[in-house]
C-alpha cells in the first residue's frame, strides 16, 4: 500500500497545541514591523505640493481646496481624502512626500460596510503666502532710491579722488 508520509506527524499533532492564533477572540495580532497598512496623513506637515497625487498609480487621492472662511483672503482649506479601497499600499506617496506628511501605519484591519469606513481625510490649512512688505511700486521706488544713493556716493568718491 502506498506509504503514508504524514501519518506519524498527524497522530502526534493530536497531542500538540494547535498553532491557530486566537484572533476573532482576542485582538488582532500586530503586523510585521515595516508593514504598509492604512495611510496616516499628518495635515500639519503637508504643504499641498501635490507630489503624492502625481505619484499615486491608482489615483486614490482627491484634493479639494476651498477658501478658509475665518482667515484672510487667499487662505485655503484643502481636504485630502485617501480612498483605502482603491489604494495599492505601494508606499510611493510616503516616499515622495518631502515633508513626510504621509506615513503607512501597521493597521491592516480595513473592513467596512459603507464607503466612508475606508476614507482617510485630512484638512490642510494653507495660509496665504505673507504679503510682501512693499508693494511692487514701493519696491521700484526703493530700488531707484538705492541707485541714486550709490551714484551720489560714487560721484563724491570721484570728486575726493580728484582732489
Amino acid at each position, binding site marked *: *500500500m502506498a506509504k*503514508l508520509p*504524514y*501519518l506519524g506527524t*498527524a*497522530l502526534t*499533532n*493530536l497531542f*500538540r497545541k*494547535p*498553532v*491557530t492564533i486566537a484572533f476573532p477572540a482576542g485582538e488582532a495580532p500586530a503586523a510585521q514591523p515595516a508593514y504598509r497598512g492604512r495611510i496616516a496623513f499628518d495635515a500639519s506637515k503637508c504643504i499641498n505640493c501635490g507630489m503624492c497625487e502625481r505619484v499615486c498609480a491608482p489615483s486614490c487621492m482627491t484634493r479639494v481646496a476651498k477658501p478658509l472662511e475665518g482667515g484672510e483672503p487667499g487662505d485655503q482649506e484643502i481636504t485630502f481624502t485617501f480612498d483605502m479601497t482603491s489604494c495599492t499600499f505601494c508606499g510611493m506617496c510616503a516616499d515622495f512626500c518631502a515633508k513626510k506628511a504621509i506615513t503607512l501605519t501597521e493597521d491592516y484591519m480595513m473592513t467596512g460596510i459603507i464607503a466612508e469606513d475606508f476614507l482617510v481625510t485630512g484638512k490642510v490649512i494653507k495660509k496665504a503666502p505673507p504679503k510682501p512688505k512693499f508693494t511692487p511700486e514701493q519696491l521700484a521706488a526703493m530700488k531707484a532710491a538705492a541707485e541714486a544713493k550709490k551714484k551720489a556716493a560714487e560721484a563724491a568718491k570721484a570728486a575726493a579722488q580728484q582732489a
Partner: protein
Amino acid sequence: MTFIQTILNILLLPGLAFTLIASIWLAGVDRVLVARMQRRVGPSLLQPLYDVLKCLGKETIIPRKANEKVFLLAPVVGLASVLVTAMFLPVGGVSALKVNSDMVVILYLLTLASVTLIVGASASGSPFAGVGLSREMVAMISYELPLVLVMLTVGRVCGKGLATFSLSTVTAYQAANGPLLLNPVLWPAAIAMLFVIPCEVGQHPFDIDEAETEICEGVLAEYSGRPLAQFKMMHNVKMYVMSGLFCAMFLNISTGFILADILIYCVACTLVTFVSMSVPHAVTARFRVEQVFKFYWTVVTGCAALSLILVWIGL
C-alpha cells in the same frame, strides 16, 4: 407491553432520537479530530447541526431542467432508508427492529440510500450531477464486494454450523466468547471493513461523487436549502450507521447492565469513526475514480477474501 416497548425503542433508545444525536456527535467529532490532526482548532462539536439547520433556513431553488417530484422526493426517501437501517443496529445488545437475516436487509437499505442520492442527482438535470452519479455508482460497485465478503465471514464464524445473516446471533456469539476483533483470523476482515466505511459514507479520500474541487459538488451540484439539509443529514447518519455496523460485527462487548454497554458502544463508535474516517481524511488526498475501483477490488477484497478462506478452512 412489547408493542409500547418497541415503539419506545424505535422512538428513543436505539431508534430515532439516539441515532440523530449520535450521528451529529460523530460528525462533529470527526471534523474536530481532522482539524486537530492538522494542528488547527477546528469547528465546534455542533457544527454539523448548525450546517443542517442553516441549510433548512435557506430557500430551495428548483432548477428549470429538474424533474421536481423526484428532485424533492429523493432526499426524503434517502434519509428515511438510512434511519430505518439505523434501527437494525444493536445498541448495547438491544436493537429496535429484529428480522431473521438483517445483515442483508442493512446491505440493501444502504444500497437504497446511495440509489436515492443517484436518482436525486440525475433528476436535477445538471451535467455535473451526471458525472457525479456515475462516480457514485463506480464507488458503490467497488465497496459492495468487500462488504459482502466481510458479512459472509462474520456470518460463518458466528453461525456455528447453520450460518446466519442476523445480527442478533452475532451479538449472542460475541457475548458468549468475546468480541470478534480479538481472534486474529478476523483481523483482515476487520481491516477490510475499516476501508469500506469511508467509501460507503463518501468521506474525504473516497468522496469522488461530490468532489468540490473537481466537479463542483458533483451529485449535490443543484441542491440547496431543504433537500440539501436532508442529504447532509443522511451523510451524517450513514457515518453513524457504518461505524455502528462495525461495532456490532466486531466490537460487541456486553457487560452486565445496559448503561455500561451503551457507553462502551458510543466510545467504540467514536473510536471506529476516528480510525476509519478521520485519519484517512487528514492524511491522504482524494483518490481518482479508477484508483478507487482498483484499490477496492484488489487490496480490500484481498483482505476480506483472505479471512474468508481462513475461516472456511476451519481455523
